[in-house]
Every structure is written in structure tokens, then in C-alpha cells.
């Protein structure tokens, strides 16, 4: 699973929809792989305003990446800064969690990830 996807995923447990501690999900015992993906600057510019930057800072820290700047780049900054574009591409699209789990900070539910596939199936009473 890509770091970008993790920035959009929330806990699926019904009771967690109303809390802020349920996002972002926290990687636990995760193995990372790096997949080569063709650069797609237009895509990054498109999703940039939708990225929850504070959540991304948390995730990057938890995955052991160097600290991100405290605020996201503007569209213009990202457009004109090739290095930043490459770094974001590497972090958001090429870095993938292959094994481990994602843990909700509110209810503690663990979503297992196997071969990159996260299991979001819930027992009915939690839905």
C-alpha cells in the first residue's frame, strides 16, 4: 500500500468516524518496499491540496523518513522545484507497505497488511 493511500484511509469502525484520534492510522511492524513508478507530476499537483499534511508528517516520522517541512509546498513551489517533486513522488507513490499492520489510535483495531493488501473486513457488530 502506498503512503499516499494511507493519507486517505480512515478506520472503518463506526464509532471511530466521530473522533479525530482515528486518523491517520499508525503503521506497526511494517516492512517497506520501493516500487519504481513513472513520475507523474500532474497527478501530484492534482492531489497536493487534498493531502493532509499534518498526517503525512506523522506517517513519515513513524516510517523513519526524514522530517518533512511543517507546511506543504504551494502548487507553484512544487511545480518549480524538481527535487521536491521527486522526493514527494518517492514518498507518496513509490514507498509501499508490504507487510505489517495499521492501527487505529482510537479503538486500537489492527488492520493487517499482507503482500501489500490491507484487510479492512470488519465483524458486523463494529460496522
Amino acid at each position: 500500500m502506498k503512503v499516499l493511500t494511507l493519507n486517505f484511509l480512515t478506520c472503518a469502525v463506526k464509532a471511530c468516524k466521530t473522533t479525530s484520534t482515528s486518523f491517520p492510522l499508525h503503521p506497526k511492524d511494517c516492512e517497506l518496499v520501493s516500487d519504481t513508478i513513472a513520475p507523474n507530476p500532474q497527478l501530484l499537483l492534482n492531489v497536493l491540496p487534498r493531502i493532509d499534511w499534518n498526517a503525512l508528517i506523522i506517517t513519515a516520522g513513524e516510517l523513519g523518513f526524514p522530517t518533512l517541512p511543517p507546511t506543504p509546498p504551494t502548487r507553484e513551489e512544487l511545480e518549480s522545484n524538481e527535487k521536491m517533486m521527486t522526493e514527494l513522488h518517492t514518498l507518496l507513490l513509490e514507498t509501499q507497505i508490504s507487510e505489517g499492520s495499521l492501527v487505529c489510535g482510537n479503538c486500537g483495531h489492527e488492520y493487517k497488511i499482507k503482500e501489500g493488501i490491507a484487510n479492512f473486513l470488519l465483524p458486523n457488530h463494529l460496522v
Partner: protein
Amino acid sequence: MSRPEDTLPPDLHYNDAEARKYTTSSRIQNIQASMTNRALELLDLSSPSMILDIGCGSGLSGEILSSIDPSAGGPHIWVGMDISPSMLDVALQRDVEGDLMLADMGQGVPFRAGSFDAAISISAIQWLCNAESSEVSSTGRLSRFFNGLYASLKRGGRAVCQFYPKNDLQRTMISGAAIKAGFGAGILEDDPGTKNAKLYLVLTVGGSAEEGTGGDITGVVKGMEDVDVLDARKKHREKGRREIKKGSKAWILNKKEQMERKGKVVKNSSKYTGRKRHITF
């Protein structure tokens, strides 16, 4: 012809053998590809987008999304949800580029509000009409799915779901649930009346009224033949306005629903919702 939907739950029907048979059949590959391309045409994406594929299966649609040429507005990235581990396993073996997750659309769409530019679903949502167990009704599953989908799309976003309703009742149940969730909805029928007839539920998440026709369903399908624009959304609202008394329980539930749709956080409703609170000492 018997419908697999009527005999087994999806994760059992799409077992290892069926998943492989399904994905390697060139007949199925061709049909799924042409429906994916039709859905893409209806989504009308002009630049690389983030797409949710519901019931993505072995990734036949996803492979198309990943391979769209920049001159045609691609390539897109996608996240696929599917309930069948075997189908997802075949997707892994095919080394698809999208992210895959094992998830039941009837349990909702676990993404924060406004995550996706668009959503696509090919030959999957009719499965929602078959309740997995007696504990959960198909109405409940349909509404969780469409409410979740609505919230996960950005304003002005679209979803196109090709589906195979068993009968008119299912067709109405599905489109009705989408409208109830807040979508503008239309049904497009290709080759109507033939055995190759295909139905596409075209859904839009309206921006504000001032934004004009951009997100509006009538704009999307204008000029197309065999489109049935469903305007029940309007009826639903008007009816609501007449009958619901401000401050009543129904009014509060309605407000909550609206807030939830906008991705706002609301308290769970209970039998106490909307009751007068008596002061106690």
C-alpha cells in the same frame, strides 16, 4: 441463465478456480475492457486522477486506468476494494499498479471526505442486493455503501457503476439508495432491449449551485440517447421540506444525515435523539 449472485456470497463464488477462469477468459476480458472504457468516457477525466475501483476483482479495469496515455489525460492512480481474496490474489500475480484492499463495500468506504476525483465500478454493485447474512439487510448495506462513496468523493466528482440488476426492483433499489445518499443520478443504457444491454449508473456529487451544470447529472448525460435522468432527488427534498417539522426528531436526523454527507462529524443517533432534555437536580 442462473445468477451467481443468487447462489453464493461473492467471496465464496469467486474462489481460486473461478477467479482464474474469470480473468483468463478472453471473452470476459474484452467485455470488461469495453465497459471500463465506456465508464471512463462518462467520467470524462481530463488530467491524471485518483480513482476508487469498487469490486476491482483481478484488476482488469485498473490495468486500463494505469495505462492511459498522458495525451488522453492519464495515467490515473487507483485504489481497488474487493471482498474476494482469490480475485485480489490474481490481481497481485498480474502485478497491477493500483493499491488493493480486502474490503466489503456493504460495510462502507473507509476513506476521509473528498479523497477521490472519481470512482468506477464494473459488474459489482448488484451483489449488494444479496444480504450476506440475516443480521444485515441489503437496504442497510446499500445505504452504507452509497453514503460512504458520496463522502469519499471530492465535490464535483463523479462515479460510474456498470451493474447487472436482476429485475426492475433491484434497479430501483440501487438507484434509489444512491439518490438518498445525495448523488445526482442518471441511468444510461447501451444496446437496450438486446441481450448485450448494459446499464451504467452515472452519479455526480454536486458542487454548489453557482457552479452551474458542471457537476450536474443533466449536464453529464445531456445529448446522450437512452439516458434516464433520475430526478427523485428533487422530489425527495421537496417532500422532506413539506413534511418535516423543524426541531422534530425527523428534522434532526435529516440534518445529521446532511452533515454526515458533507463529511462532518455527527453524534450517533439513538432513541433519545430529538427528545426534550428534562433538567434534573
